[in-house]
């Protein structure tokens, strides 16, 4: 029992001594480091955090974000709309040109058809119309 107690006492003394050495070591190290001149360095994250924490910069960043997130899609939409309108106008012009060409082609066909019809019309009058035809002939002769 006495041996255990004395052993514990020895251990406690050793621990106390170690803790005292540790304390003095930290104090000495701290004094040495404290006296050393140094420039404060800040991390990138700290710089970013400070930038964001600044109300003016935060406002500017928020505005830029809103402009980017709203302005860019609106601009893209507008550009697409303009392109679609230009395409539609181009197609309309093509269609009009096509219609004009077709009408011209159709017009040629009508002329041909009329001449064909004229050639096909019988020059002789039917029997029932003979009196009228003779009157017309007489009137033309006079």
């Amino acid at each position: 029992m006495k041996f255990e107690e004395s052993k514990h006492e020895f251990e406690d003394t050793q621990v106390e001594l170690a803790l005292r050495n540790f304390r003095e070591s930290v104090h000495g190290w701290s004094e040495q480091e404290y006296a050393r001149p140094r420039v404060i360095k800040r991390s990138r994250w700290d710089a970013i955090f400070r930038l964001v924490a600044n109300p003016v910069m935060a406002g500017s960043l928020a505005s830029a974000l809103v402009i980017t997130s709203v302005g860019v899609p609106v601009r893209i939409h507008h550009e697409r709309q303009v392109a679609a309108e230009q395409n539609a106008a181009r197609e309309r012009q093509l269609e009009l040109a096509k219609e004009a060409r077709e009408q011209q082609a159709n017009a040629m066909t009508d002329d041909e058809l009329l001449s064909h019809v004229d050639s096909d019309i019988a020059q002789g009058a039917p029997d029932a119309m003979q009196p009228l035809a003779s009157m017309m002939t007489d009137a033309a002769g006079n």
Partner: protein
Amino acid sequence: MATTTTVLESMGKPAVAAFPSAVASNDSAEFADVAARYRPQIFRFLLASLRDPDAAETLTQDCLLKAHRNWAGFRGESSVMTWLLRIAINLQKDHWRSRRLQFWKLTNSNSVDADDAGQWLPSGESSPEQQVVARDQVRLVWKAVKGLSERQRTVFMLRHVEEMEIHEIATTIGLSEGTVKAHLSRAMGRVRSELGGKR
């Protein structure tokens, strides 16, 4: 009217960054005295906790800056040192959090290894043999500290480096005295184990 820059300069350190401020000259003068008195202790606590002199210096500046900004609101319910250490502990927590709580697992260029930290010994009149023993003890304590949780380490540093009483530690950290004792007991168990004790 004194500015924060002049306050920091009065602490014995050059103010690298200029901070805008507009506080009453009386408050600034009073705070300059407080800062000059407690700055070394805050630096020491942060250095022991972080093992990084640059980080300790930066956080000490941040701590005093925060304290300066809130100096008018300090009502003296606790001691100035307790209040300053509380700010320092919160900054230290943020620092660790920002490094994903991996500080003690990482060794970057600024942090000092536990073995190196143990090289600083008081210049006593002890013999070379005693110095070797002391150096080994300090190294083992650092090794034990390295394995402690953040809270255990803080309690251990406040008790055995800053020599604060249990109730002071409890007030500073915002825990009950019983919880502080429990953390301290676990920390001491690890230190004893590292030093070769059975208890």
